[in-house]
């Protein structure tokens, strides 16, 4: 009898608890889930981790301000181990089990390409924050949108910069044999003769190279006005230092792109060198939001953010604007159309965000000069050049297959 009484009492208590909990559950709206498949381990760990740091800043801000359409924005961050097969498996899992509204996250072009196929096939909006391989937005692309300008365009932009500062310049190229570098150099080689530049040396290093002294000597013997240096990972630093060791002046060195750790690596002896970027502490056009983001990121991470962190900071805001424009967070096709029709600006720098019919962004690039480098803590740079261009101003999809 006692046992029966206890059972009844427990059942009543449970029912009462459930009744009380029901209104509470109804009060907390369902989150809008977005799958964020990025590189938390493997060779690209630094980029994936830096990206997530930027992403969290923006997500927190948006959710503290009330979320999107009254619902919190939730990025389900998943490790792809810098592997295409893992990225594909994670995308499938997020699509089928978590029923995410959209996909995002990769910072490696190889990984992004694997997700691209899945997103296009399954008709899932896919916003790529930091991957520059042109074929991610090849003609016919419908669901993939790329925030970072394509890498062949970076080469185009460099040629335009050199054309402006030294018409008819002699240029040497030194780069690693990696997809990103090959695309950059393809863009440069295409544009160089059109900009009346003369390529006097063109040296490609296999991945895993550790020394460039001999090639640096060959380049010096060719007496270029500028040397474009783009090594993979730490090799970029090796080429730079060995060029400087052999008497090439910092002012002659141009890096197609530079993130914070790269600038630290180049160090004080590279003061005067130029690097391309899409966001930087030294931009002339930083908005108050941009300055605030830099200050808070720096305080939290002991280094200023670069364009990698900025693009991942911008990503949740692009989703927010597009979901609000779509008027719903439950329809992938409407979200896709809203991203495609978006006409907004990066809140950190005021640069326009507009996608073309293939999901490529209206492209742009800054060229900064290194002014000072203070160890591994901070650096100063000065904006020397800014350029915007249409993604197909060069035959980008033919140049890089």
């Amino acid at each position: 009898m006692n046992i029966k009484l206890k059972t009844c009492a427990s059942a009543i208590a449970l029912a009462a608890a459930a009744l009380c909990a029901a209104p509470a559950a109804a009060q907390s709206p369902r989150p809008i889930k977005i799958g964020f498949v990025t590189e938390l381990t493997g060779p690209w760990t630094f980029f994936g981790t830096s990206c997530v740091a930027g992403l969290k800043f923006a997500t927190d801000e948006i959710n503290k301000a009330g979320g999107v359409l009254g619902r919190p924005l939730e990025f389900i961050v998943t490790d792809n181990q810098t592997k295409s097969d893992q990225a594909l498996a994670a995308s499938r899992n997020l699509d089928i089990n978590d029923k995410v509204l959209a996909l995002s996250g990769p910072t490696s072009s190889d990984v992004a390409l694997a997700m691209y196929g899945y997103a296009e096939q399954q008709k899932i909006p896919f916003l790529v924050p930091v991957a520059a391989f042109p074929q991610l937005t090849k003609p016919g692309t419908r669901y993939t949108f790329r925030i970072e300008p394509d890498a062949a365009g970076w080469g185009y932009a460099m040629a335009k910069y050199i054309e402006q500062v030294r018409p008819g310049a002699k240029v040497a190229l030194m780069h690693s044999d990696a997809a990103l570098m090959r695309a950059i150099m393809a863009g440069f080689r295409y544009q160089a003769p059109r900009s009346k530049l003369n390529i006097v040396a063109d040296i490609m290093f296999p991945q895993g190279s550790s020394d460039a002294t001999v090639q640096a000597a060959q380049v010096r013997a060719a007496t270029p006005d500028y040397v474009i240096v783009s090594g993979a990972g730490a090799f970029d630093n090796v080429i730079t230092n060995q060029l400087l060791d052999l008497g090439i002046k910092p002012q002659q060195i141009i890096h197609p792109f530079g993130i914070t750790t790269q600038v630290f690596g180049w160090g004080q002896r590279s003061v005067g060198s130029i690097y391309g970027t899409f966001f930087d502490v030294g931009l002339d056009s930083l908005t108050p939001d941009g300055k605030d983001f830099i200050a808070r990121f720096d305080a939290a991470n002991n280094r200023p953010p670069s364009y990698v962190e900025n693009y991942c900071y911008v990503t949740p805001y692009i989703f927010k604007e597009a979901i609000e424009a779509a008027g719903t967070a439950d329809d992938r096709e409407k979200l896709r159309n809203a991203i495609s029709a978006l006409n907004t600006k990066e809140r950190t720098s005021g640069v326009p965000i507009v996608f073309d019919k293939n999901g490529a962004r209206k492209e742009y690039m800054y060229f900064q000069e290194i002014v000072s480098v203070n160890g591994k803590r901070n650096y100063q740079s000065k904006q020397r050049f800014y350029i915007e261009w249409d993604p197909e101003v060069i035959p980008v999809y033919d140049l890089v297959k």
Partner: protein
Amino acid sequence: MTDAQILILMSTLSTGLILGAIFALVAAGVTIVYGCVWLPNASNGQFFLLASLAAWTFTASFGWTSLAAAAGVLILGTALSYLLEWILIRRLYDTPNRNVAYFVVTLGLTQIMTGIFSLTYAKWSDQFTLPPVIEGITMFGPFPMPNNRLLVMGVSLLVLVLLFVLLRYHPYGRALRAVFQNREAAALRGVNVRAIYRLSFVLGSVIIFLGGILFALAYSYDLTVAWTMSITAFAIMIIGGPGSVIGAVVVGMTFGFTQAIVSIFASPTAATFSYLGAMLLILLFRPSGLFKR
């Protein structure tokens, strides 16, 4: 000769000597352990990287000079090698076909260390550089050679000479070579085989650690260097003859110079393929390598 030609010639020489000496050192470390203990250390690249990263930590986080960092890494490396031998390696000394067991064990170590580096250093930076031990440049005609690289070259070559002298003339070296050649016979002659095993593992590992430090002093590096160095060290050991220290030195130096020279006349890509192609070719005609143990 024009200045440009001298510049290219001198840069080829310096690259060949520095890279060759570092390759030779690491391969010597690998081959000593393999030749004596019959332990093909698949984690040699990770040992190499561990030393480089530890030196970076001492300089970047603790503010040590590169010289102090190098000393610290060597002391820690020696202790770690002893510990590893005590915990893991010695348990397989008497196992039949222990080379296979060791290969699997060190593959496991590689995975563990790769995971640890990926969860730590890979998140902190994508590239690592040690400050130079000495500043300045020495001119060789028109060729400017940073003093720090000169130091790395000098130390690498000196250690190779010392290693040669140790193995050739010191009682330990003679005992080690005796165990290399015939373990049972060496034991009958009173050599403490297990002690020689222990010393060989520690010596070989410390040489790999030293290679990692010297490389970090000469070049910027990232986590991919472990894989590159691992492949290169094994290739050198196989061509030189497993267990042959002189083979490791000769082939290591040849690799360094081949890289430098082929990259002038062909391309850096061809240079990388050239020595791996040479390895396959040599193995066709001399499967046991160029030098005997």
